[in-house]
């Protein structure tokens, strides 16, 4: 391909177009003026103006997670870059492909404490998969395309490209590299034959198997989710999903035990505890999932499939580590399984399922119904039921509402559920919903929110208004930072230090002031009407659902406890005091 002469700023636009980027999320400033000028002169790329750079990164995350493409962000130097840091960390923790372009002061001023200078590559080094500072316009094309390659391949993650202003003005030759072959970065995709054989043997011989799958299945692509579903059905093993993995197996599949971990279902956690063979697929034995490590799945032989070798044996030692891409490895496992025509021993399997059905009878997600007060779980349940036949995407903020959403909303497909898992970033849901809605203009996009979280990025309502994005903000308003209050109840004698949501805005008027529609429900019999109206208006909506202020999220594995030491309700918590070592855990 012949190279073309252009400025660095033009190369940025060109490289994004060549990468197939359609939308970028950004906010202008002095150090990115040349790029904004180049943007002005073209019509292939759509720029979405957010209202704070943090919102741009979350929007790009929402876009990426709901499409499987790389989300792209453009911000200025200094405060533009530092505002992006939370989003970058969020994307790193949840393995979301994001490329973030940051402006930088001209190269000759770097290190001089120039106006709006910050050490962007230094600050973002620990919160990106990789980052670059482009110091020569002739490196621009290669660096940008490499950034996309690194962001989306292997274990995906955020990549920052820092662009000094003089490089944006400088002229150079642009050429799209044919294929990126990186000198030192080569993720391993396929497992060895012997690893696959051993995995099949272990699964075939299992009496009480379980599949524990996570976000890696979704990141690996649509084939991975089909293969996981097939594997679960072929082997007849029960399957539980992490918060990040919801949708990787259809929730309606009878093998699905629900989410596991701190607020997971009783059957999922008990099956994890009691299994004899565990197949972990694209999950990372996070502390929210394992509970107390020395009591984690004590009798299980563990197989762990992950594309990131550093995820293996980090928290839990496994018997068979398999480094590779989920789709590749599952494909190979299923081929060997099929070729060997394996049918697992029926007797023990039946016993196992009988046991699981007994755990299921506990109905651990059950809650006290009420016809005078809206129970938050009921609100989610109705939202689920009333959006079931729509093309629905859910994002969340962080807190109790997030866990209730994970428990009570059912996902049949991957990429429908966007939540901040690893970092737990309040303020994620609204900008993420904006990113999702831009990618899926005709879909129903709902941000299940808390009244505290939503205020963290409420400015993005203006973005929704500007681009006429009909995102629905479904606030479970309990007038508390409920999740923190729950922990204060459990660990600190009910001293609710600073967790009351004081001086809340009137969310209905707030919606109105942003040109959106505000709705409120205070009684259970108003809920359905609220949801119906929320779904029928073709505008952004803030729905203020006033729920039970005192409800807590159960079941729960208190910090420092094991999978088989769950709490089921308020009465339970009092009986089992939390250990000292549990207290210090987050």
């Amino acid at each position, binding site marked *: 391909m012949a190279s073309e002469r252009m400025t660095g700023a033009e190369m940025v636009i060109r490289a994004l177009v060549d990468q197939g980027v359609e939308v970028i999320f950004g906010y202008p400033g002095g150090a990115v003026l040349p790029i904004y000028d180049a943007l002005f002169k073209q019509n292939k790329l759509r720029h979405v103006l957010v209202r704070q750079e943090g919102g741009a990164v979350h929007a790009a995350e929402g876009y990426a997670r709901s499409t499987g493409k790389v989300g792209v962000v453009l911000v200025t130097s200094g405060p533009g870059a530092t505002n992006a840091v939370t989003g970058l960390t969020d994307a790193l923790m949840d393995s979301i492909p994001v490329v973030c372009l940051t402006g930088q002061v001209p190269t000759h001023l770097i290190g001089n404490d120039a106006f709006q200078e910050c050490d962007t*590559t*230094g600050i973002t*080094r*620990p919160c990106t*998969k*990789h*980052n670059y*500072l482009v110091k020569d316009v002739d490196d621009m094309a290669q660096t940008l395309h490499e950034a996309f390659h*690194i962001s989306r391949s292997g274990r995906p993650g955020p990549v920052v490209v820092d662009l000094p202003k003089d490089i944006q003005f400088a002229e150079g030759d642009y050429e799209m590299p044919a294929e990126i072959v*990186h*000198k*030192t*970065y080569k993720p391993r995709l396929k497992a060895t034959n012997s690893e696959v054989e051993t995995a099949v043997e272990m699964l075939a011989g299992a009496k009480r198997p379980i599949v524990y799958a996570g976000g890696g299945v979704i990141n690996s692509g649509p084939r991975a989710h089909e293969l996981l579903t097939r594997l679960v059905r072929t082997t007849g093993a029960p399957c539980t999903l992490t918060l990040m993995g919801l949708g990787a197996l259809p929730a309606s599949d009878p093998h699905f035990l629900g989410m596991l971990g701190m607020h997971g279902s009783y059957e999922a956690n008990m099956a994890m505890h009691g299994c004899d063979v565990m197949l972990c697929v694209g999950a990372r034995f996070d502390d929210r999932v394992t509970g107390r490590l020395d009591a984690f799945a004590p009798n299980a032989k563990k197989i762990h499939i992950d594309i*990131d*070798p*550093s995820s*293996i*044996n*980090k928290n839990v*030692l496994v018997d068979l580590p398999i480094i590779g891409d989920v789709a590749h490895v599952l494909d190979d496992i299923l081929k060997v399984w099929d070729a060997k025509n394996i049918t697992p021993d029926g007797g023990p399997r039946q016993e196992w399922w009988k046991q699981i059905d007994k755990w299921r009878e506990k109905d651990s997600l059950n809650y006290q119904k009420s016809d005078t007060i809206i129970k938050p779980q009921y609100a989610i349940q109705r939202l689920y039921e009333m959006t079931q036949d729509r093309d629905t995407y859910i994002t969340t903020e962080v807190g109790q509402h997030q866990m209730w959403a994970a428990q009570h909303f059912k996902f049949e497909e991957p990429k429908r559920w966007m939540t901040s898992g690893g970092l737990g970033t309040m303020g994620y849901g609204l900008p993420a919903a904006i990113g999702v809605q831009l990618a899926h203009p005709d879909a129903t996009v709902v941000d299940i929110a808390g009244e505290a979280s939503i205020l963290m990025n409420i400015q993005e309502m203006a973005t929704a208004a500007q681009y006429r994005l009909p995102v629905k903000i479904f606030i479970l308003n309990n007038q508390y930072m409920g999740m923190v209050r729950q922990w204060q109840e459990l660990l600190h004698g009910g001293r609710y230090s600073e967790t009351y949501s004081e001086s809340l805005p009137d969310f209905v008027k707030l919606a109105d002031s942003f040109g959106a529609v505000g709705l409120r429900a205070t009684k259970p019999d108003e809920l359905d009407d609220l949801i119906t109206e929320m779904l029928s208006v073709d505008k952004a909506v803030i729905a203020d659902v006033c729920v039970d202020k005192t409800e807590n999220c159960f079941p729960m594995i208190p910090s420092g406890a094991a999978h088989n030491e769950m709490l089921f309700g308020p009465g339970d918590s009092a009986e089992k005091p939390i250990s000292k070592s549990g207290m210090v855990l987050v």
Partner: protein
Amino acid sequence: MDTIERHTIAALVENEPGVLARVIGLFSGRGYNIESLTVAPVTPDESMSRISIVTSGTPMIIEQIKAQLNRLVPIASVHDLTADGPHVEREFALVKVVASGANRRESLRIADIFHAHVADTTIESFVFSLTGQRDKIESFVELMRALGDVEVARSGVVAIARGSKVL
């Protein structure tokens, strides 16, 4: 199981800005130990550097350190010399000793025993240069401290596997 082991790790890295910061940031950010760390370009075109790290931790932590290092984009390969078999470890030190009279003479005698060279001398001081294993350097420095004021500059450990195999 939970015993602390000392490992010498060699990483071949692309010689680009920030790569050392990535490695050091990784160690401090994840709470790993660095006993010593050295770096220098090792290819004719200076495009690749070799970082030698001495670290300690449980076997699980050592495995994590290697996996985390491997995950850094500009790292080409990571080698655990301690686990991979016999290897040669050397450290270089410059040791200044300020002493006079009998102590001064004694410092020269000890330097001779350790095969240290005199790199600089004044009426009341020597600078010795010395190469060897870590404990050799440590015992040399310890002996010198008994004789006068001592200042030490050490390179940190560099290491390479024995035998004919080349990385």
